[in-house]
């Protein structure tokens, strides 16, 4: 067996850990831990970006890494922690599907994602093309997290984790998106987060709970 260069090995390990964190988020009941996992995912992403920037010498990746660190590791988790404290939502209710069932569905999704990414990976020429499958899997697992959760807070965490997956996908397929797009997405996420924070308070005001289940009854009775 020929050994890969060390930096590529570390990149692969980081990719595998990203996938693991996605599964941990899928199985987590406590919202506080969910946010910590999101921060951890951001940190892994930041480390991977830094390593890739060093390996390829693409300078704009350093900027992406700094952006990831500032936004996804520090600012957004801090904002979420604050929201959790102010709203007093520490636990999600039992997810729609039990945890073991969700994990098995998650495994099927990973297999699907790997199959989906195979042709894309064959076209890409980057060093990390095999990690595209993992990026797709992270996105789909974040989808699953959003689908199986009831509380608005966990759904937002799922949404942010999905953004992480997209970012990782862009990084492994083409060494990152153009800077302008990346800045735009970062700004979008930031604004979305701030707006959603206001929404949380509105939803709670209206229904005395953050359970999105209540929103389904919003349509007019006839």
């Amino acid at each position, binding site marked *: 067996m020929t050994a890969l260069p060390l930096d590529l*090995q570390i990149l692969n*390990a980081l990719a*595998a850990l990203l996938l693991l964190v996605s599964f941990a988020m899928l199985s987590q009941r406590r919202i506080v831990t969910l946010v910590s996992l999101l921060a951890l995912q951001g940190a892994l992403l930041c480390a991977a970006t830094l390593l890739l920037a060093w390996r390829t010498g693409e300078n704009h990746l350093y900027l992406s890494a700094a952006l990831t660190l500032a936004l996804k590791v520090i600012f957004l988790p801090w904002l979420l922690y604050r929201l959790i404290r102010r709203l007093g939502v520490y636990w999600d209710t039992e997810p729609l599907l039990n945890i073991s069932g969700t*994990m098995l569905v998650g495994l099927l999704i990973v297999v699907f994602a*790997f199959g989906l990414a195979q042709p894309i990976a064959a076209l890409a020429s980057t060093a990390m093309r095999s990690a595209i499958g993992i990026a797709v899997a992270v996105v789909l697992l974040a989808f699953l997290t959003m689908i199986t959760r009831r509380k608005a807070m966990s759904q937002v965490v799922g949404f942010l984790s999905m953004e992480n997956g997209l970012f990782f996908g862009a990084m492994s397929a083409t060494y990152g998106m153009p800077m302008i797009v990346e800045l735009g997405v970062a700004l979008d996420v930031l604004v979305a987060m701030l707006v959603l924070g206001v929404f949380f308070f509105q939803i709670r005001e209206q229904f005395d709970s953050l359970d999105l289940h209540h929103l389904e009854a919003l349509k007019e009775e006839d």
Partner: protein
Amino acid sequence: MNAVTALEWFTQVLEVITALAAAPLLFGWVNQCRAWLQNRSAPSLLQPYRSIRKLFHKDAVLATNASPLFRIAPYVIFGTMAAAAAVIPSVGTHLPFTPVADGIALVGLLATARVFQALAAMDVGTAFGTLGARREMMIGFLAEPALLMVIFVASLLSASTALPAIAEQLASQAVGIYPSLAFTAVAFTMVLLAENARIPVDNPATHLELTMIHEAMLLEYSARHLALLEWAATLKLFNYTCIGFALFAPWGTAHSETPQALLAALPIFGLKLLVAGGGIALVETLSAKLRVFRAPEFLATAFLFAVLGLLVRLLLGA
């Protein structure tokens, strides 16, 4: 040729004798570490030997409605565990017995022991025995696929399902970061804890009726039968630890059957056992016992880790 075969047989016999003799010692060592970590005064390292000897000297009492199966079961279970010990490479990898059973057959061997244990527990018809047997089967059917997946990942890396070949291949491959092996190692540790009635799933030190699994199945046994079953339980822990070594820490095992190589391998093996025993005690001390109905979740996580290892191996080749 003949001389070599004789030496190989010697390795084989040495392995089985080491397993039979050292298994209670490993058990005692884990108990001792646990006691230290929990600030209790530790029982002697030789305590498992003493209790086994004491049990052998007692007269056996059998329930009046016990069938022959109840009496055969301890011998079958002990026999399967000893046979499993013969197949797993612990000190050396040149074993004449190993072509008989590869990793998958080994899982089957361990399952045989489980089936007999459960049947014997239900045989007398007490409530506790049945309860223990049912719980054991619940844990078993979840732990087995996880263990098989772990073995599959190692087989994928080394292109063989025979444990000695896996151990040799993994010991000789380039040093590097293998996320797949790391994931499967976590999965294997979880399976080891669940299968050996260790703390997150079962507490071996308790006779509290509502939580016990393994102890509940032994309640009807006494004297030599109980001694054999307890010895088999220590052997099971020893076997699992050795499977772990073969898959995740294959260094230092003798790859030839010369006496020098074996002599060099023995202390390393002892050292690995010391570390593993301490590690098991540490995990047990740090974790809390799960509710029985959380056990499937625990084992589903183990299965998940193993499958993730497999997928990561297939996709990243790492």
